[in-house]
């Protein structure tokens, strides 16, 4: 498929092009899911955040000021909707930092079982670290601006935080 910049996709979608909209949905669904989960949401709450965020983009589509930054706009909106969902559920709590804890048993890995072991190790890292790792392997690739906006971390700390999360993941996996 021909690579389209986000700005082009937004301009085509606002003119009513469903193929362009589909490409936006393919590009950013993982971002929205990962953000909702990073707030500790699951199941129907994740569905609600994702659905509301897309509806808000549709309502703003005709007037969106900077189409090229639609990914960051989606990220900000998904964060706001995640907090709104927590508020509606009456169980908002302060967000913990994203420094992973390293308590609990370590997993010893032999190549073949890598994917399964990584899955298990991911369950043990904090939601925000998990979200950062998920976003950093998204395809098509998300920009550092989109990732930093999604997680509310400064642009310059995305790389270092990602390296730290990978280190913690290695420790969980019992490899160095």
């Amino acid at each position, binding site marked *: 498929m021909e690579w389209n910049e986000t700005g082009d996709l937004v301009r085509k*979608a*606002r003119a*009513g092009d*469903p193929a362009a*909209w*589909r490409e*936006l*949905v*393919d590009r*950013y*669904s*993982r971002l*929205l*899911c990962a953000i909702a989960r990073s707030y500790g949401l699951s199941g129907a709450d*994740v*569905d*609600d955040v*994702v*659905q*509301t965020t*897309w*509806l*808000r*983009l*549709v*309502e*703003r*589509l*005709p*007037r969106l000021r900077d189409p090229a930054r639609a990914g960051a706009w989606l990220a900000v909106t998904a964060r706001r909707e995640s907090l*709104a969902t927590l*508020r*509606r559920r*009456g169980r908002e709590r302060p967000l913990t930092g994203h420094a992973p804890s390293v308590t609990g048993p370590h997993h010893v*890995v032999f190549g073949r079982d*890598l*994917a*399964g*072991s*990584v*899955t298990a190790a*991911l369950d043990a890292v904090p939601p925000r670290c998990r979200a950062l*790792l*998920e976003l950093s*392997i998204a395809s098509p690739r998300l920009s550092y601006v989109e990732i930093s906006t999604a997680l509310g971390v400064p642009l310059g700390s995305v790389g270092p935080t990602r390296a730290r999360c*990978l280190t913690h*993941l*290695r420790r969980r*996996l019992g*490899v160095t």
Partner: protein
Amino acid sequence: MNDDELIEGLRRAFPPVPDHLVGLGLAAFDWLAPDATLATLAYDAGETPAGVRGGEPRSLTFAGPGVHVEIEICGREIVGQLTPPADAEVILRSPHGERGTRTDVSGAFILPEVPAGLVSLLFRPADGTSVVTSWIHV
């Protein structure tokens, strides 16, 4: 294990985005109203659903260029006022579908049996313009 191997493991560890979530994103496009004036939420008396607050009405105000929509949600009923007053078709939009009524000459309207969840209102006055409100949770 090097970074590439670990990244490859990560790629396989994260499952694909569930189809139903992609479906919610695709379906949102059906609600595109490119010619409508958007009235955004300017005031919300309480984000808690009315049912949880013991039946007390929840008032909300939407504002857009040259237009104002005030509504009160009481139980499953929405009572509202379009300003400036216009004789208009009122369409209640929700992911479950659409339902319509009309304002009276003073711009007032009532929508009974509003489904729980996301809703938005679309107004079509006789002059051919249209106004749409932001999506809210009710």
